């Protein structure tokens, strides 16, 4: 475990350094003030520390709780009880997700509590659907296709402003708290099975859970109108650095303490209800793990909140002043690639995939495919900004491609792809890439909601394409060769001679 911490620290450092260097050099070239640059460098170090601590902590706490719960509830014969507990778990872990809170405060027209509980309900219901799928061995592809047909039909009848918000809330739902939890819940739910579909059933939960909020939030569109205002002042705060770090740290601790409460509650209730579920040693480990997770998460949030948002926004703004679209796109390609390398939720997902597939689908190859997805997402978002392409066309065409690919790729890759889509739209996308696009958007004087916000929706879609293409290549490369002229008679050896 300590060894794991060391390797994880090394890996995170390697993935953060390129982005740190690129952003620092770009900032200097664009003439951004030194205060911002210095705080970005400090934040990058905090980011390394935060991500490493968080993933280490969640590995020994949340992921163990999730897996145990999944494993135990599937053994319960009472289906309605299983479904109700899954609904409650889905709802609670979503409403406490820090990213969702940030999004809710940014949307001025809908009361926070309404949006948060709508998204929570969406996740809860779809986690239920995912469990039904595992219990009754339904086909993931069919469920997803039906849901996307519903979503796109709804999109046609709803105000344009609401579509990006619906897709974005789905993207932010599956964040740092829910990804490890839901992911391991799926592993637990399928762990006692040995049939052919076990692996593809293990994954796909996060994917389904991120569809839920799109539908429920789109329904909200019937009640509220989509005209939102966005406050760009959050990017231009000029307090002294030290104060910013201290203020943010206190705020982040509060922000992450609240999510921990329901998780601790779920843990306690589960421990009381089902006997012998956790040994004394495991309990100690989980408590220690939760504290480490909390600290790591707080450090992570501080680093992104203090400087990533501001730097991203300023870079976007300055790039527009250069009036060079191809240079902006080039920067976007690189930054989109690099930012996915750092995303903690993606790291957790990739580790799990590597473990479940015994290293057959290695985390490096997943990481590269996801990063390519990130680059494509940024290119599409920028093109959309420059040439006024409607988000609906991109999503419609993209998801059509996703569905076609799902018929060509192995089942397990479709499931993994949908999970990656949910995980790729994590905290760094919302705190660095989104402000970057918003920066360009404000400089070009366009509508932030319709033109900038769709980034998260596109970011959630491109990995579905790249991962499924990876699956097709994989299938081709690992095809079992059928031999014709070989002798397969069984022969005995005189093994005693060799000992």
């Amino acid at each position: 475990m300590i060894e794991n911490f060391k390797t994880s620290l090394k890996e995170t450092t390697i993935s953060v350094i390129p982005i740190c260097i690129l952003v620092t050099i770009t900032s200097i070239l664009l003439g951004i003030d030194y205060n911002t640059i210095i705080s970005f460098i400090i934040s990058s170090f905090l980011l390394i520390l935060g991500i490493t601590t968080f993933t280490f902590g969640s590995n020994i706490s949340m992921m163990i709780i999730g897996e145990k719960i999944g494993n135990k509830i599937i053994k319960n014969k009472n289906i309605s009880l299983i479904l109700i507990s899954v609904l409650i778990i889905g709802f609670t872990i979503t409403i406490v997700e820090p990213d969702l809170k940030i999004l809710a405060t940014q949307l001025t027209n809908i009361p926070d509590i309404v949006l948060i509980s709508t998204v929570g309900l969406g996740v809860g219901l779809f986690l239920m659907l995912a469990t039904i799928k595992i219990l009754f061995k339904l086909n993931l592809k069919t469920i997803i296709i039906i849901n996307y047909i519903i979503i796109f039909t709804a999109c046609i009848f709803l105000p344009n402003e609401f579509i990006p918000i619906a897709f974005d809330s789905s993207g932010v739902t599956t964040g740092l708290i829910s990804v490890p939890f839901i992911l391991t819940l799926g592993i637990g739910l399928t762990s006692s099975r040995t049939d052919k579909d076990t692996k593809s059933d293990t994954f796909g939960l996060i994917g389904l859970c991120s569809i839920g909020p799109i539908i429920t939030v789109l329904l909200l569109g019937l009640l509220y109108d989509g005209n939102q205002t966005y406050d760009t002042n959050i990017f231009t705060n000029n307090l002294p650095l030290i104060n910013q770090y201290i203020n943010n740290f206190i705020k982040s601790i509060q922000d992450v303490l609240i999510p921990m409460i329901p998780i601790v509650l779920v843990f306690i209730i589960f421990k009381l209800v089902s006997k012998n579920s956790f040994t004394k040693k495991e309990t100690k480990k989980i408590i220690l793990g939760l504290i480490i997770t909390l600290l790591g998460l707080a450090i992570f949030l501080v680093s992104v909140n203090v400087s990533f948002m501001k730097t991203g926004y300023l870079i976007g703004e300055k790039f527009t002043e250069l009036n060079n679209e191809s240079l902006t796109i080039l920067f976007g390609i690189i930054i989109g690639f690099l930012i996915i390398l750092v995303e903690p939720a993606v790291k957790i997902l990739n580790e799990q995939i590597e473990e479940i597939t015994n290293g057959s689908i290695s985390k490096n190859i997943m990481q590269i495919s996801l990063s390519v997805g990130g680059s494509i997402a940024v290119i599409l978002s920028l093109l959309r900004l420059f040439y006024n392409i409607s988000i609906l066309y991109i999503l419609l065409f993209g998801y059509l491609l996703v569905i076609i690919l799902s018929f060509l790729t192995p089942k397990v890759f479709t499931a993994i792809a949908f999970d990656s889509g949910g995980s790729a739209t994590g905290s760094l996308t919302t705190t660095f890439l989104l402000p970057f696009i918003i920066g360009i958007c404000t400089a070009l004087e366009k509508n932030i909601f319709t033109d900038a916000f769709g980034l998260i929706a596109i970011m959630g879609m491109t990995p579905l394409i790249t991962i499924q293409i990876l699956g097709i290549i994989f299938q081709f490369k690992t095809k079992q060769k059928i031999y014709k002229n070989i002798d397969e008679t069984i022969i005995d050896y005189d093994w005693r001679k060799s000992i």
Partner: protein
Amino acid sequence: MIELMCLISSDKDDKSIKPLYSKYNMPFNFTIYGEGTASSSLLEYFGLEKVKKYIYFSLIDQKERTNILQDIKENLKLEKEGNGICFTIPLSSSTKHILNKINDKENTMDQKLKEENQIEKDNKKEYHLIVTIITEGYAETVMNTAKNAGAGGGTLINGRSLYQDKSKNMFLGFSIEPEKDVILIVADTSIKNNIMDAIVQKTGLKTKGGAIVFSLPISDAVGLYE
């Protein structure tokens, strides 16, 4: 003669072991994940003692055994405590294909010896561990075939193949290797060859299953019921 080599190590990237595959002609390799324990009481108190371990299995030519073990010892620094262990187990039988691929000179049990052993065995039952390595998803077929041939039960492990030939499984500089299922079945000598034959017929290399089958000698066993 062919032996099964097991290497247990925390070495993650198979860089230190893979070059040996082509150096010593080892075409059949696979790996599984496991967990080891570190020896520190402080870590154990918090339940953090677990270390990820990788178990590498390879079929090797017995004549090369000393050289291979020496190379592994040097590459993975096994003389240092906690870096891992490596050991070999002789095979009691395998398909002829495996023998041909690894070592062309046969050194099999001749008929006379077989009969002598048979008399000896009549007094005491002798058991073997049948190991089947097969494309992921075919485990159930193997189990059913084995049961029909007289096997009592089996155990399933998930693993991954490691190719000897580097060029055919690379993509963008990353290796792509297929997932494999490993099925362990314990059977006595009288039915062992029937089971192995049945598995090879139904899911062998001439089919999509691509099963590789061999057996290891077991000196004694308890818990087997017929």
